[in-house]
């Protein structure tokens, strides 16, 4: 994005502003820092992260307290492995969270980005800062993306800690039957966290776009969450298999490829490409909407 576009969008926001006004790097970074600070100071953000962290802990406690051993093939994948290796608590926690809990929390944060400020009447103050609308949009998206990472890490970290607390932890058995050392297991856990974070970037971009459409944040949140459910329902209909590779949720559960030996990065690449496509399309839509919008609140 060139300075020219930025200054253009600023002058569109406030026609009276001086034409020479461009984003000073210092002020722009200050906006990002303040956005992240506000995001992670909110009680709601921490409530969402704690709710996510509770998922693997609940799984671990339930398996620990239950007298009956989980049988292979019943319940979520890897559940039967949990008693043998606590690290699988994190993996099972992610598998359980991916269809609903993670999209739910990401939908709340991404849907709130612009609409929340508009609803509170603070959007025009943010735009009064000389950084410009485009930079504000970018900052809001970065905030949502950082939340995706925090949400995923909340599940993985809580899962690993619960696994360490309740079950023996040792060398990890991969899907291929090979066993890897503990340090390599942590590396794979981080890779999986990275995969899931990337998986949620497309949904965040959709939420950002919805958020520019309305001043009612709940509407944008609900629309984002509903869309994530609709995408998964469509993905499960075999009649629509031509559409499946285009759905942002298509590769969500394929992070299991990172648990194969040798490690398989094919789905990681395909997922990143797909999410990048969603980011570009919905980023462009959000740009079109946001820079042409009359900001009244």
């Amino acid at each position: 994005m060139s300075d020219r576009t930025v200054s253009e969008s600023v002058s569109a926001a406030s026609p009276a502003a001086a034409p020479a006004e461009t984003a000073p790097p210092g002020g722009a970074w200050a906006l990002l820092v303040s956005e992240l600070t506000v995001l992670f100071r909110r009680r709601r953000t921490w409530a969402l992260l704690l709710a996510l962290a509770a998922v693997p802990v609940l799984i671990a406690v339930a398996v620990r307290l239950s007298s009956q051993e989980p049988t292979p093939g019943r319940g979520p994948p890897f559940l039967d492995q949990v008693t043998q290796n606590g690290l699988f608590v994190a993996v099972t926690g992610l598998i359980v969270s991916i269809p609903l809990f993670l999209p739910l929390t990401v939908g709340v944060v991404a849907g709130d980005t612009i609409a929340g400020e508009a609803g509170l009447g603070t959007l025009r103050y943010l735009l009064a800062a000389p950084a410009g609308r485009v930079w504000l949009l970018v900052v809001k998206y970065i905030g949502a993306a950082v939340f995706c990472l925090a949400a995923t890490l909340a599940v993985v970290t809580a899962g690993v800690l619960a696994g360490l607390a309740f079950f023996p932890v040792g060398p990890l058995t991969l899907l291929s039957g090979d066993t890897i050392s503990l340090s390599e297991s942590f590396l794979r856990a981080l890779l999986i966290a990275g995969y899931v974070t990337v998986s949620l970037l497309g949904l965040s971009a959709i939420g950002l776009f919805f958020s520019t459409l309305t001043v009612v944040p709940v509407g944008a949140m609900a629309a984002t969450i509903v869309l994530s459910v609709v995408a998964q329902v469509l993905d499960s209909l075999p009649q629509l298999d031509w559409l499946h590779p285009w759905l942002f949720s298509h590769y969500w559960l394929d992070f299991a490829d990172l648990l194969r030996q040798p490690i398989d990065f094919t789905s990681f690449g395909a997922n990143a490409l797909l999410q990048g496509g969603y980011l570009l399309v919905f980023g462009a839509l959000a740009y079109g909407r946001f820079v042409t919008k009359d900001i009244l609140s």
Partner: protein
Amino acid sequence: MSRTWLKWMPAVAVPAVIVAGVLAVPLQAGAAVDLPDKTPQEVLELAAGSTVDTLSGTLEQTSELGLPEIPSTGDAATAEFADALDLLTGSHTVRVYQNGPDQSRVQVQDTMSERNLIRNGSDLWLYDSADNTAAHTTLPADTADQAAPGYTPSELAETFLAEVTPSTDVTLGENTQVAGRAAYELVLTPNTDDTLVGSVSIAVDSETGLPLRVQVEARDAAEPAVSVAFTSLSLDAPPADLFAFTPPAGATVTEETLPTKDHAGHPEGEPSGVTVLGTGWDAVVVMPAGADAAALAELTASPLYSQLTDAVDGGRALSTTLMSVLITDDGRIFAGSVPVERLQDAAAQE
């Protein structure tokens, strides 16, 4: 007004660029591949002379046989039956590694699990992560040369190339590109109307003669009924530790004596009494009554059996786009790449 229009430009341009990119990639892959001219006979010799024995690659296998989707839940017998049919329906991603004649590893990737077949010298391991079981077999010494993983296009291609008889027209299709490698395309067309097979296309690597893709098309079908193709391929030797397998802690390990090379559940070797009627594409395999009565009884008792087969004159028939099976009321089994009617004729004449 024109400025507003400009602001929406990226929202129009980005999807347009993406669509253009998506359309351009297959066009590029399908662009004419320039290879020295060869006759079909020379390509057949090239394929026959292939000496590749180290490779690592990823295969995409799809089957569109017109079978209904098999539910993977149910009682044990149903699950076992569904497991056997699993490789005949839908699509699978399979990674294959081979190092020399007696080291190979085949990984069938499922969504949250993986099936591994590992051969290292005379040790054969079968590991299924879905139920965490491992089966070990010691191969007799004389099987040393049969190392080719059962899933590769080479093995499938060999089966069809062995069929190249006077009943087959061999032609060359457009040169093609598979897994980034230039290839000749052999097209085998049966010149009889009695078979369900429309044509078989085999993409032969122009450098090494290794079959890279095999597609079997049913008569009058637009999509290949069966397709096995490399999506990526390297001819370097894979790391040696891939073939050293020890079952993981906690796995259920069984020791098997019979070589069950084929994971799909068919034991190696044909039961006694099996005869073949005719030769070539429209041959019919006949299994007399009582040859494998126990297995047949188990099969017919499965609820899937009545779901998959249709009642026809003289028995029940399973018909797919590529193959038909007739199980007569007196327990004989007829199978072949022919319409059900031909199987019924054969059953009546026997």
